[in-house]
Every structure is written in C-alpha cells, then in structure tokens.
C-alpha cells in the first residue's frame, strides 16, 4: 500500500486541517508536485543543484574510533553535516524553491527552530533571486543568534515571534498566518515532514535522497544492509529521509530519537511518543503533547530543532505499525554525545544530531561487533557552540 493515500493519510494520521483560504493553495501545490515529480527536466534540475550546489552525495563515513570506544556494532555516520549550509534541510529547500519557481511565486516564507531551515531557505532564495522572510521564535533567536545573523547576511528578513513558547511551534503558526494572507504571491517552504498534505509526503520525497545514497553506500562498504538506522526526530524529516529507502527492508531496525529534555518525568521535554496522544496541530493529525482539553503543551529541549509539540504524521504511522521504534535522550546525554563525537572523531554534531549519537552510545555496546548501524549526522555543530558553552557554564 502506498502511503499517504490521496487524502494525505498515513493510516489515521495526516490529512489537511487548514483554513479554507489555504485549501486551494494546497490543492494546487499537490497537483503541481505530482506533475513535476514525474517530469524528467525537473528531476534533472534537482539533481544538478543537489550535486553541484549542495555537494551530494554526502559521504557515509565509518567512525572507527567511536566504534572502538563503544566496543560493539560498527558505526557509520551519514554526513549530512557536510551539505552546503551545514544540515540536511537544504535538500528540501532546493526542491521547494524549484516548485515555487514553477508556480511563479516570487516570495518564499519559512519557519525555523534551530535556524538551519531558515538558513537553507534564505540561501536558496538568494540563489534563485526570490524574496524571503523567515519566522523564528524569540527564544530560538536568542539561542541560535549566529544563524539569525547568517540569514540576514543572505538577504532574508527575520521576523521574531513573541507568542506562546516563543519557539518553533509559534513560528509555524505565524508563517501559516502570513501564508493565509499572501498566498497568491507566496510559497510557504515548510521545513519538516509536518503540516497539511502534501507537505509531509513532498518533504519526505525530497529528503529520501539521504537513505537512497546510504543504502547504496553501505552495500558497497559492507556488502549487506545495516542492522539498524538511528536518527533524531524533531518534525522528523532527517529521520524519514534516512528511513524511507529502507522501510521495505523489514530486517533493518529503524530508531527515531526524540528530545527527552530534562527527563520524561519532569514534564519538560518534547518526546511526543512518550507523553503525547493523537491530535491535530498546524494542519495534521498526529501524536501531540497536549493536556486533557486538547490545549498544546509547552515543550523543552536544549536543541531548538527538536523542541516541538507534534511529530510528522508518517512517524505516528510507523510507530503504530511498529515499523519504527522511538526513544528519547535527555539534554545532558545529548551534550555528552556532542563531547564524545568531537573528541573521538573530530566532528562537532548539531545538538539535534547529538541526540542520535547519544542513543548509539546506549545501543551500540549491546550489539555484536559484526553488526552495523548507520546514524544520520543531520547537521554540524558550529551553530551550537555558544549554546554548548552556556550549558558548560563557560563565558566566551
């Protein structure tokens, strides 16, 4: 069965819960996307930019010292941190910018949490000569100040959102309001596998290049499929991107890692599968952190990119069908993973990606040396250096 179905449903999850004003734009986007994805010229153009602008394929790197140190499964890192702009987000931003050009929409808007998606969108807007406005929670602007300045250097307008938790969720609401107002001239470049159909499907497709490459690369390196894949899950785009090509390979275990914040018991986290239940937020039916009345809970994570109350609907589907397992790691565990990867491999991961590394620190030692894990290193840690200093109590 192909998912999603034509209503954008992944089993009971997904759908299109938006104001009527946006329905025509979503239907148009779906129509244009379905047409262009089969268009050879579009695919050639996308491939060209992914290769010569983004720098794909990204390497699949055998982390030998990390493997030795953990003493179990062989660990491979899928190096999305080596993409232009430093994270996987640009795979999707390029695809959507090309679609916006086809729909003749001269203005791009986007939300951003960690700032990586904002930087990616500002980057492709500059490259294609499109106007660009980025919405970002004021709390995130503070913890990702470097990325705010990067976006401005790239010519984007960065608009702070001072509502709710002042993080990713509030930035998405504000971007949706902008889109509702300017839908005729504006394309909304949503940054993760969230929101109303066709976004979760389309963004998955744009990110699935990660898993297609990794599958070929691991077959070349090991002559077999891996035993497991590990990726952090904010909205879930880098995870779905890595998982998608392996979903039919039932023997490959898929593990998504959510933000455990200060611990699940503390209530200060963003682990939707540990503390949430299905509901509707920002266009889609999915697992959601909410109270008994259906009000959305505030979330916490040291990592702005994982600090969100809902999760992509396809992950809810994989969770329910048991195709993927979901776990969480705390802020402190993520920070320890950041340190370990920096010291053992000379790679500073984004704090988001450090969550995936932290899970590997737990699982790899319990596995056989003959077993193989692929971890998605979704982004580089330069943007987080100030935040890490703050956590360590160091003033720069």
């Amino acid at each position, binding site marked *: 069965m192909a998912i999603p179905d034509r*209503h954008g449903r992944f089993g009971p999850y997904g*759908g*299109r*819960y*938006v*104001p*009527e*004003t*946006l*329905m*025509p*734009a979503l*239907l148009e986007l779906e129509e244009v996307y379905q047409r262009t994805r089969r268009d050879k010229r579009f695919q050639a153009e996308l491939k060209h930019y992914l290769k010569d602008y983004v720098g794909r394929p990204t390497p699949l790197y055998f982390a030998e010292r990390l493997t030795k140190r953990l003493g179990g499964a062989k660990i491979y890192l899928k190096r999305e941190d080596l993409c232009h702009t430093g994270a996987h987000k640009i795979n999707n931003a390029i695809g959507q910018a090309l679609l916006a050009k086809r729909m003749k929409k001269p203005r791009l808007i986007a939300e951003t949490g960690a700032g990586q998606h904002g930087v990616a969108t500002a980057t492709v807007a500059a490259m294609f000569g499109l106007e660009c406005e980025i919405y970002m929670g004021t709390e995130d602007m503070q913890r990702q100040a470097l990325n705010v300045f990067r976006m401005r250097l790239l010519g984007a307008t960065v608009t702070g959102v001072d*509502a*709710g938790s002042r993080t990713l*969720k*509030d930035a998405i*609401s504000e971007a*949706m*309001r902008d889109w*509702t*107002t*300017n*839908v*005729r001239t504006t394309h909304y470049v949503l940054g993760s596998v969230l929101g109303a159909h066709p976004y979760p499907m389309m963004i998955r497709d744009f990110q699935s290049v990660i898993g297609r490459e990794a599958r070929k690369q691991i077959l070349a390196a090991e002559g077999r499929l891996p035993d497991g894949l590990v990726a952090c899950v904010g909205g879930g785009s880098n995870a779905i991107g890595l998982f998608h090509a392996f979903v039919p390979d039932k023997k490959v275990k898929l593990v998504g890692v959510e933000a455990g914040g200060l611990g699940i018991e503390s209530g200060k986290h963003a682990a939707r599968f540990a503390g949430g239940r*299905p*509901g*509707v*937020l*920002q*266009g889609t039916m999915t697992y*959601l952190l*909410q109270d*008994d*009345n*259906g*009000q*959305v809970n505030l979330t916490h994570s040291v990592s702005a990119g994982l600090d969100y109350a809902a999760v992509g609907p396809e992950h809810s589907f994989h969770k329910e069908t048991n195709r993927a397992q979901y776990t969480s790691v705390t802020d402190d565990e993520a920070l320890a993973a950041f340190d370990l990867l920096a010291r053992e491999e000379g790679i500073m991961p984004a704090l988001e990606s450090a969550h995936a590394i932290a899970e590997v620190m737990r699982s790899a030692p319990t596995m056989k040396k003959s077993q193989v894990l692929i971890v998605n290193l979704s982004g580089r840690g330069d943007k987080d250096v100030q935040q890490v200093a703050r956590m360590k109590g160091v003033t720069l």
Partner: protein
Amino acid sequence: MLNFELTREPRATNDKPEEWTEDMNRLDHTLSQLKAKGEKALITYIMAGDPSLQETEQLVLELEHAGADVIELGVPFSDPIADGPVIQKAAERGLRSGTSLRMILESVRHLRTNTQIPIVLMAYYNNIHAFGEAEFCRKAVDAGIDGLIVPDMPPDEAGPLRGPADEAGLHLIFLLAPTSTAARRAYVAKESGGFVYYVSITGITGAKLNDIAGVRDNVAKIRKHTKTPVAVGFGVATPDDAARVADVADGVIVGSAIVRRVGEHGQDGRLIQEVGAFVRSLKAAMQPA
C-alpha cells in the same frame, strides 16, 4: 408542469413571528424570521472566558439586548492559526481564566434559562477531538448550542463530525474564502448548514476589509449553489463596514472589533456598557433605509 416545492409562497411578512419550539434549530428559526422581514442578521463574536465565563454570560445577554441576532462564542485554543493578534490575545486571556470547552457548555446551559438567541461555537479541531467528536455533538446540542464553526477543518476533513452532528441537530458551518475555486464553492456551499461563512479577505481575523465589490461578487456566486443564507465575516470593524456588508449578504459577522473592546474594558468596570454601545451602533447602521 407545476412544481409545488419551488412555487411555494414565501411566508407573508405580516404574519406574527413564529415562536421558537424545542424541535427547531434556533439558528434556522432566527435566520428565516429575519429573511421574512427583509432584515440582515448581526452575528457577534466574543471569546468565551474573556475575561471570565461569568462576564461572558453577561456579555451574551447584553449583545442580544443591543441587537445581535446570533452569538458566536470562541473557544480559547493555545494555537489559533486562523486568528490575528486581537483574537490571539483574547484566547490567551480565556485560557488564563481557566476556561475549557466543558465549562463553556455549562455556561451556555445556564444562559438558556434566560435566552433563546442562537449560539454558535467557534472551536479549533483539536479541542473538539480531545472532547470526542460524537460526545461533543450530543452534549453541545443538549446544552443549547445550535451550530459549530471549526476554522481549521474544511468539510473534506469533517467525516468524524458529520454523522453525530446531523443526528444531534447541530449545524456544521463551513467557510469559503476569496481564494476558493468554483469547485470548492460548489462543494463547501452544499456541505454548510445554518449559514455559509464567507471570509471577506484573504487573511486572518482582524485584517481590513477593502474590497466590497469582490465580496458582493463572491456572495452572488455562492448563492448559485445553495439556498442557505450567506454571512460575511473577517474584517468587518465599523458601523460603515457593517452597513456595506449588510447590503450584499444575509448576515454580518463582527469579531475582532468587539473583542478588542472586551480587551480594553475587561478590567475597568465599563465592559458591558462599552460593548453594548458598539453593538447598538452596528445594528443601527444595518437597518434597511
């Protein structure tokens, strides 16, 4: 051949207004009465629980007194994507006063000892989903609610509500927008009960209305698909706006302009008086010349 369905005489205007009886939906009753008199409905929106549910009840009675024909009660939600800053802030105040959907239903039940004015709830989908779709429809009608507007639920996603709403006699009111295509107009107009809510601007609540000709065109196009009344909202802020909209539609919906006054006078003791005066000015502007 004569078609008796289509040639039935409209109700004579000098008839005594028919009394509402319990088997009637209050919204249908009121809108058909107004139509028979050649008048337009004034539909006023306030946020439930802003500043408190007790004051909401007082406000509802005052709105009716001041000439409102239908009350729309907003249900405060943490993430109101279709609302501008004025209603967002009202939702925050409603949440801060501890207002929940269950409590709102109790307030409406209480109000029903004093008034039979039609009451429509405007709630985001997750609040309804958390309550349980079927249970909500039963309890809402039982409490005295006549219709439901869910701004983030187009009819395409209304499956789980359709059966229970029809069974309970709760109107599902859907929205059309300036961006709606002909196909969507036909579909949404057919699905909408009580009235069709035409969103007068491409945008969120509280934006400015400036294209009355466009509104007139769109209302005419919607009327080709349905006999259900068409009410126009989003951006109706002044008595002059209300008059212009009353000229082209069956109902005028005023939200942010009232909610702003609730925000300004919520704590100064003049709440009821200020809101009442404003609604009277809207109603006066809408009287046929």
